[in-house]
């Protein structure tokens, strides 16, 4: 039995469309916004509208940005000989947080998945190929996820980037730092064993 008004139901349905938000979470968020000072909801709505209107894709790396080219592509401090290929814009945040990588990025906006109707044309791959002509790129780092789709995408990129005769690497897969080996699942340990490195 529906007990909420049409407008409340509409808000719950809209919130449910957000990834990882189920019905219960949607209801909680909805009632939080309705019970709080109206300013909280209005500020949130305004922030969403403003972010949506002012955010564009960087014409070089396809990262989400407020300016074109994005800060990373426009920076003179970055190492333009390296491009790290990631699936989604938020992957860049994780890599940047390490402070170790100083090269450029390229965002694919997804992975190959015939079932979901995502082919090479749906990904920002042609943009990557164009970049290879313009810069003196010497290394492409593939940072796609270690999933079936992520692996297939990495294979596809390797295949089409062969002709550029540049170094193509894939980020290492294995144990998380600080993890107790007893608590790591066997698939991760097996991957770590396969990707072991020589120390002497």
């Amino acid at each position: 039995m529906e007990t909420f008004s049409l407008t409340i139901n509409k808000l719950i349905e809209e919130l449910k469309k957000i990834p990882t938000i189920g019905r219960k979470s949607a209801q909680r968020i909805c009632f939080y916004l309705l019970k709080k000072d109206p300013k909280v909801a209005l500020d949130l709505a305004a922030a969403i509208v403003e972010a949506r209107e002012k955010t564009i894709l960087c014409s070089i790396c396809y990262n989400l940005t407020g300016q074109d080219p994005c800060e990373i592509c426009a920076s003179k401090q970055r190492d333009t000989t390296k491009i790290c290929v990631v699936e989604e814009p938020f992957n860049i945040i994780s890599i940047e947080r390490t402070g170790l990588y100083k090269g450029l990025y390229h965002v694919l906006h997804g992975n190959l998945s015939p079932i979901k109707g995502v082919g090479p044309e749906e990904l920002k791959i042609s943009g990557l190929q164009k970049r290879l002509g313009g810069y003196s790129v010497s290394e492409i780092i593939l940072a796609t996820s270690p999933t079936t789709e992520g692996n297939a995408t990495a294979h596809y990129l390797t295949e089409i980037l062969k002709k550029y005769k540049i170094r193509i690497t894939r980020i290492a897969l294995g144990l998380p730092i600080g993890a107790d080996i007893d608590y790591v699942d066997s698939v991760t340990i097996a991957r770590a064993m396969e990707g072991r490195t020589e120390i002497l």
Partner: protein
Amino acid sequence: MIIQTLELKGFRNLTSLDISLSSQKNLIYGLNGAGKTSILEAIFILGFGKSFLKVKKSDLVNFDMNAFFLKMGVLKGSIETELIASFKKNGFYLFLNKKNSNVVELSKYFYPVFFSSSNYNRTIDSVTEMRKVINRFIFGVHSLYIHYILSYNKLLKQKNYLLKTTKNVLELNSWNHAISEMSSKIVDTRMQFINKLNHEIENKFGNHLTILYKPSFDTNKGISDDIFYQQLEKTKNLEIKNQKSMIGPHLDDFEFYFKSINFKFYSSGERKLHLLMIYIAFIELFKKTKNQYPVFLIDDFDTTFDNQNIDFLLENCPDIQVVATSVHKFKSFDNLIELKCGNKDLKRVKNG
């Protein structure tokens, strides 16, 4: 490993059931339709996350209820563990000691071997069924195998979809690369397992009985990602034409031979006995690998075995916990559990 207790709610025709099992030979007996096989099916689900029958989880819920709940107390060495499988409207979940878990984790504490009178002929006659049996065996002794199979199945689904919807050869190559990587792992694991199992069969029953593994990929030049990729390359045009994958571990074949003659040409009784020998050899291999016995589930015990086979089984598996079902009562079992229709009159008859 030993099942100590089993609790079922809303599962098939069993609205509520709570039983204790002996560490040796248990027989659940009762009339047809009492729910004997459902008990084995519930135990199987706690081991493999799915039924031995091709059935949706929602179809396993009792007509009068909207969810099922399975709980099992297992003893492995001196460690008591609680395994739970529950299905509700929002999905199927497995729990290990009350924490969210998965089949791989549960298999460290519990692994069943299922033998049924209704499926032994199907196992021998159907390549798919045979592959399922061998896959389950390998899953019991190789912790990464299920990951290989699940990843391979995902890749295959994507590739077959691609073959039906587009002719992008370059994209197909990338799926073939990923498939060849996973295939080499599967074929290598299967080959090593069959060698070990044949060795175990020979040790136990002599060299008359053998399993022949026939991979869909040609392995004469070795097993590697590159070798398999080359073969996928050669088959590519045919696959594009037929719009489906034509080569890979999903098409591997296993043949069982006794005195160099395929099991298919033996009588029903002989097939049963020979297959039972393979199961017993696997149980021994499992014991050597995991340093413990699995739990042996036998459905329709009286149909599956004659008196000679019963002795053969009990002699060859003296320390294993057996949970069998039967229409009739057999006094040779340690623990007899009578199941009556509606299961409200569950009776523990002996040592219960």
